[in-house]
């Protein structure tokens, strides 16, 4: 349980901008992202490939490449501004404060080091445990992430395990020092649906038991719908809509979110109905469109959208979106979004 004196807010990111200098030009991978996360809560970050989800998580963790990168903006973690800390200081936060489960467990685990040492190393370094205690903790951890015969697994190498098992190990490594904040970057994308469900449930259980906050990154709205407290939708390096999960699904404002939801084949729809595809594809991050970044693909786009970038507006407490002509706000003409937005009755469908 959190001490009463602690503030509820664990993470507050303001106007984060991460850019990569490449031969083709400057890639604006994260372009003005702000978000807050309370202790013990889950924020789902959804977006298509290349929208900047991983770079956002890595920027907050302080895990960016050393060269040809700039990262600006404020990151306040547990009441402390960390964006200006030198890399060595940032690294001290890894493990006991923040940890990450990576998109690809095979590249994140060291292939030539036994599983056991990969877990105990962090425990000894960060928590200063001796070898025996670290070993005992590691065994308990492996058990808690559902790994049978943990003693045997400790002596194995990553390639000797199945994909689902490796992802459990990654989770065990990330949880080893009891982080307050966990970034799970598409922890299940490489896995089959049945294993994906096991892993997501495991993460949820661990999170409840530890009152740990989690940033759950995915391209699948289905994965976060039943699991995140809030959802942020990313498009071309920006958050284009963010809201408490139930609110987002009940009162979608951003046409991109609407289009994304409509393009998913659903189990409860009649078969072989035509899918509502989004034409075209996401824009270049080197030279994004001047107005709304979704305008070239948006069914509601008007002249203003191509000219002027819409700011992030609030439609109800905690619900923000980036659109001149938001969904569900009539009439759809210039300035429509300035009107007070009366939310339609929310409802657990």
């Amino acid at each position, binding site marked *: 349980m959190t001490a009463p004196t602690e503030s509820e807010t664990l993470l507050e990111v303001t106007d984060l901008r991460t850019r990569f200098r490449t031969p083709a030009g400057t890639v604006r991978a994260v372009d003005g992202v702000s978000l807050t996360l309370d202790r013990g809560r889950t924020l789902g970050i959804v977006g298509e490939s290349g929208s900047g989800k991983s770079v956002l998580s890595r920027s907050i963790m302080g895990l960016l490449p050393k060269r040809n990168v700039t990262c600006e903006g404020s990151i306040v973690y547990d009441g402390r501004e960390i964006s200006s800390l030198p890399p060595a200081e940032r690294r001290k936060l890894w493990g006991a404060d923040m940890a990450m489960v990576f998109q690809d467990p095979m590249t994140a685990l060291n292939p030539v080091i036994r599983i056991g040492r990969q877990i105990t190393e962090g425990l000894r370094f960060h928590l200063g445990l001796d070898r025996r205690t670290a070993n005992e903790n590691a065994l308990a951890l492996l058990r808690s992430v559902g790994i049978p015969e943990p003693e045997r697994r400790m002596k194995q190498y990553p390639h000797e395990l*199945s994909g689902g098992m490796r992802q459990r190990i990654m989770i065990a490594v990330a949880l080893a020092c009891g982080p307050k904040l966990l970034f799970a970057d598409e922890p299940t994308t490489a896995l089959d649906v049945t294993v994906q469900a096991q892993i997501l449930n495991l993460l949820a259980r661990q999170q409840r038991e530890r009152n740990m906050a989690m940033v759950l990154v995915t391209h699948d709205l289905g994965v976060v719908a*039943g*699991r995140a407290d809030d959802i942020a939708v990313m498009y071309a390096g920006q958050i284009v809509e963010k809201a408490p999960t139930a609110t987002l699904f009940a009162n979608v404002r951003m046409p991109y979110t609407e289009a994304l939801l409509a393009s998913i084949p659903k189990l409860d729809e009649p078969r072989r109905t*035509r899918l509502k595809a989004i034409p075209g*594809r996401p824009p270049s991050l080197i030279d994004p469109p001047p107005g709304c970044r979704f305008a070239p693909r948006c069914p509601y786009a008007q002249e203003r959208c191509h000219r002027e970038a819409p700011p992030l507006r609030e439609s109800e407490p905690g619900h923000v979106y980036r659109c001149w002509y938001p969904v569900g706000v009539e009439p759809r003409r210039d300035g429509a979004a300035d009107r007070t937005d009366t939310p339609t009755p929310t409802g657990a469908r």
Partner: protein
Amino acid sequence: MAGTGTAHLRPEDETLLRVQDLVVEFPAGRRKVHAVSGVSIDVRRGETLGLVGESGCGKSTTGKAIIQLPRPTSGSVRFEGTELTGLSGKKLRDVRTRLQLIFQDPISSLNPRRKVGDILAEPLRIWRRGDRSEQLAKVREALDAVGLDPDVAMDKRPHQFSGGQCQRISIARALMLEPELIICDEPVSALDVSVQAQILNLLDDLKERYDLTLVFIAHDLAVVRHVSTRVAVMYLGKLCEVGDPDAIYESPAHPYTAALLASIPVPDPAVRPDDEDVLGGDLPSPLDPPSGCRFRTRCPRARERCAAEEPEMRAVGPDQFVACHFPLVGEGGDGAGAPAAADGDGHADQSARAAGSERADGDGSDGDGSDA
């Protein structure tokens, strides 16, 4: 050869493609990978058969074995009444013009050094279909049909296109020789959802326009349900359940189908993911698949009989067939004798599953270990 049965096959004269007791094994040291172990499927003209199952269950191997790439270890593949397993040389190549496979990875299956126009014209040149200007017209038509601007696309190379566009190019290439049947191996799995819908709609249009029959391989059940007129669910080299998608999705008969359906994340916050329905354990190794029913090591309904005896495919509805001793639907018989777990006895259910997952795990790692 103990297959999983053929009760689900329709009369042969009604089908365009008929695969019976297909077996594909790969050598692995002194052992064998049992990739496909007695699969039977058939496809009627105009149907879209959805072949679904998790990674490694043998979907691609089945697709490739149908076009004899490589030739299956045993079993029969009949296309338009011709047995393909005995064919070779020109005769086989001739059949392959009418029976096309779009490979799982579109980008690596397109020659990076050649222009898109040449890639598409190549099959026409090889088969001497039409003169140069006719070939060019055909290439342009195919590019246009898959939604690419021929003027822009013809002279570019594959790496200049996105994943979704490469998928369109592979589809265009498969169309060049006007095939009867196309096997699409995971045509949308690598694509973003917004682009995935474009390709699914495209396949639907092309099917109409060219009177195509499709075999659609995928691991996403929602996608498969969307496109298919018939569905076949695979697990570890065997078929579990075959039939009408509405029947199967409405009330799955095989415990594996049920688990797969329960694992699909639903984009609706009112649907809370449920720990109860989640399948435990990992896929056993195909080097040493479990005896009896291959699903038994992870199955919540498994009993002794499942280890001793392999379940044969049988009907549980007008167009629903299942290979399971204790299916979730079905009139009386074995279904009535289902284990206590089915009646909501949580404890029995849990312990059966726990035991199952441990066994599954043992099998899997032993296989991996000695392989390494």
